[in-house]
């Protein structure tokens, strides 16, 4: 009998794996120093199944001061580098004790770069170098009993070193860029202004912020152009229907007015009616990016929220591993078995229908992933799934079934109406064969316009003809979903990290709102960097590093060589930065001050018209709003403010008393707006 230590990534995964591997399905649950682990029996062996809590080790500076450049680093326990991660120290200690008298090791972390690295670091630093040789790797894409057992039977003989090396290099390169550039920014501001503010920029963050900046400049310098459209309505079979002028946009006002004059009140002739059929293919299977975009479109969930929910569904074994780029399902995955599982759920009738078919092939997309298939339900019937998690599950299940459905067919009708030599179009369309759409409702985008019966040569009276001036629109600002797409197209970041990078941009105060607006601080960071080290913002450098990191995974380059190259790339950048530190600091500092002033300005004083700002009482420490005229004694207008939550200007004025309307935002509550004046008669009812 051997004792084997099985290392999992998260506690919920450890429990699932233990239950699947124990021959009786009932592993012993034990605790050591507060860390839960399991003892399972299998083929005469004793399996000790324990979990990490994500990464237990991280890259950190080796000795020295808080300065830059820093190229000297080492791997240390996360809790030593970050005091907030104190709990992880216990995991290291517990695993160390459990690994005594162990003869074999199994890495059962999620099968990707991060998972491979998590287990590798634990083996290397907690269990000792020798454990690396005695370790094997389980590879699975879902946490169902079936998948776990299959992974156990087909374990690889060694750890997956190319993946581990790629992960190690990625962490080291990201750390080198992040720590050096962030310190350079922070120290420059400290030197120029004397005050400390954490600023950061990273390898992927730079180009991403740059995308947002470029779009923002386009929006803010946009000047609309006028054009005209002809709005017209026709009466057909007793119904009023919109007709489109076939000439589309009209560039000149005179021409538009001429069409209006010639067609108004006239009777036209229906010249031609054409019908066509459009075949609409089923949607492709989801990869992570697709799921995040679709969840944003239909539920307005942020990419990071969707990832969190999908991960939880994976840990419950309801869906396959979500961090995948693949839009494909290999033939080894049994679609019928999954559908049979779904029979026990609310999708019963739909699953039944699919099962009755002879052949079942999902529609796949172009993108692939060597480690995992597209996201799909496992067929395990969910229990007690509620709220946002249930929504994401529904979306994934319906998408999976829709991809197995047949084409939908839509009939399009187009009629041409001739009025005084001008052509107008009447368009309609309806779905005549719903096909896959039945599985994907309510997420299908459908626009139905059914037309009355039309005959060529019939007279048609125009009820309304009007030349209407419109304006060209600026490009739209990025929202979280379109920015994610832009990052994917530029090949920067990974499917696992992109959502987190967006969160960091918000947390650092570089962007706000959704759609995303870049703040003055964000502007200043991009401007300064584009001035002094444009490489940091360039997609090329980030992308080329990204490709090298992938090459490590394929065994084409050595990890240490890529890390060395990153150091060489950083050296000249940091040297330039140091030389211009003062100038850079002053530039950024000005933007920070501008941002603070803007954030503290609530509108204009109803008495004298100057700015109303947020101040803090010198003794009470309480915040209040006051006119800037207070300083020179020329105006004494002040208002008390709510002490909790964030306060923003709305740009609106109270209709009753003319004072500014402010918005109060508190965590967990819907933001509300109110007149800043507590004595305003608009509040009479509530008082």
């Amino acid at each position: 009998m051997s004792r084997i230590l099985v290392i999992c990534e998260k506690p919920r995964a450890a429990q699932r794996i233990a239950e699947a591997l124990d021959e009786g399905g009932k592993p012993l649950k034990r605790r050591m120093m507060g860390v839960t682990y399991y003892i399972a029996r299998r083929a005469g062996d004793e399996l000790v199944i324990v979990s990490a809590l994500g990464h237990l080790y991280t890259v950190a500076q080796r000795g020295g001061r808080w300065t830059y450049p820093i190229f000297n680093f080492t791997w240390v326990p996360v809790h030593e580098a970050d005091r907030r991660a104190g709990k992880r120290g216990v995991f290291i200690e517990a695993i160390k004790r459990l690994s005594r008298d162990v003869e074999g090791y199994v890495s059962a972390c999620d099968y990707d770069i991060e998972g491979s690295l998590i287990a590798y670091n634990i083996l290397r630093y907690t269990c000792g170098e020798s454990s690396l040789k005695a370790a094997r790797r389980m590879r699975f894409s879902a946490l169902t009993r079936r998948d776990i057992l299959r992974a156990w039977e087909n374990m690889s003989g060694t750890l997956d070193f190319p993946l581990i090396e790629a992960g190690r290099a990625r962490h080291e390169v990201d750390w080198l860029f992040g720590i050096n550039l962030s310190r350079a920014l922070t120290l420059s501001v400290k030197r120029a202004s004397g005050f400390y503010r954490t600023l950061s920029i990273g390898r992927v963050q730079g180009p991403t912020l740059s995308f947002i900046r470029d779009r923002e400049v386009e929006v803010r310098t946009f000047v609309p152009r006028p054009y005209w459209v002809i709005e017209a309505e026709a009466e057909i079979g007793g119904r009023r229907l919109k007709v489109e002028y076939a000439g589309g946009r009209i560039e000149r006002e005179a021409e538009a007015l001429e069409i209006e004059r010639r067609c108004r009140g006239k009777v036209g002739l229906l010249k031609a009616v054409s019908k066509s059929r459009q075949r609409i293919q089923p949607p492709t299977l989801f990869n992570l990016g697709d799921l995040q975009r679709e969840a944003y479109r239909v539920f307005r969930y942020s990419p990071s929220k969707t990832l969190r929910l999908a991960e939880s569904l994976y840990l419950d074994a309801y869906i396959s591993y979500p961090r995948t780029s693949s839009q494909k399902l290999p033939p080894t995955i049994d679609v019928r078995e999954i559908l049979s599982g779904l029979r026990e759920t609310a999708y019963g009738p739909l699953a039944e229908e699919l099962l009755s078919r002879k052949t079942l092939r999902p529609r796949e997309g172009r993108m692939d992933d060597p480690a995992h298939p597209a996201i799909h339900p496992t067929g395990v019937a969910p229990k007690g799934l509620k709220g946002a998690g249930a929504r994401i599950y529904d979306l994934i299940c319906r998408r999976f079934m829709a991809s197995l459905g047949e084409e939908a067919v839509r009939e399009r009708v187009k009629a041409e109406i001739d009025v005084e030599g001008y052509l107008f179009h009447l368009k309609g369309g309806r779905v005549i064969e719903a096909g896959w759409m039945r599985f994907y409702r309510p997420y299908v985008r459908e626009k139905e316009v059914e037309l009355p019966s039309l005959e060529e040569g019939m007279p048609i009276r125009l009820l309304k003809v009007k030349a209407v001036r419109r304006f060209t629109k600026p490009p739209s600002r990025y929202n979280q979903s379109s920015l994610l797409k832009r990052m994917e197209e530029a090949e920067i970041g990974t499917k696992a990290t992109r959502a987190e990078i967006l969160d960091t941009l918000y947390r650092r105060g570089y962007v706000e709102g959704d759609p995303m607006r870049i703040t003055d601080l964000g502007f200043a960071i991009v401007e300064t960097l584009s001035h002094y080290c444009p490489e940091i913002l360039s997609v090329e450098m980030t992308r080329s590093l990204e490709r090298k990191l992938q090459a490590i995974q394929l065994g084409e380059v050595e990890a240490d060589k890529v890390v060395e190259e990153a150091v060489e790339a950083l050296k000249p950048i940091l040297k330039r930065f140091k030389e211009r530190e003062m100038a850079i600091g002053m530039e950024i500092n000005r933007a920070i001050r501008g941002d603070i002033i803007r954030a503290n300005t609530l509108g204009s004083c109803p008495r004298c018209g100057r700015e109303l700002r947020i101040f803090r009482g010198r003794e009470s420490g309480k915040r209040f709003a006051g006119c800037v005229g207070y300083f020179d004694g020329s105006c004494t207008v002040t208002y008390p403010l709510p002490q909790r939550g964030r306060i923003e200007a709305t740009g609106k004025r109270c209709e009753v008393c003319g004072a500014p309307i402010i918005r109060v935002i508190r965590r967990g509550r819907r933001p509300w707006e109110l007149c800043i004046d507590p004595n305003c008669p608009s509040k009479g009812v509530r008082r």
Partner: protein
Amino acid sequence: MRCKLCWRDAVEGEDYCTYHLEAYRRILEAYEDWRRAMDIGWEEFLREVSENPATGEWAREVALRLLGEFRSLSPSGSPFPPSPRRRRGTS
């Protein structure tokens, strides 16, 4: 020199920073298109642009400033924008 409209440094020899200068350039370009599309003078164009919700905030700031400048410079209302060179000479 500060930009006349924000806290950024002005481009050398200009009234504006790069962004407001870009907005100014786009306003002049747009004016050509507007005049081709309809019968409109410089002042009315600026008023239209400054009131249009689709106008970007930097373009609006420039338009408002030009409007004020134009009203103080040319009470008769010439249909042509003052050339940038002349504008700088008088300010």
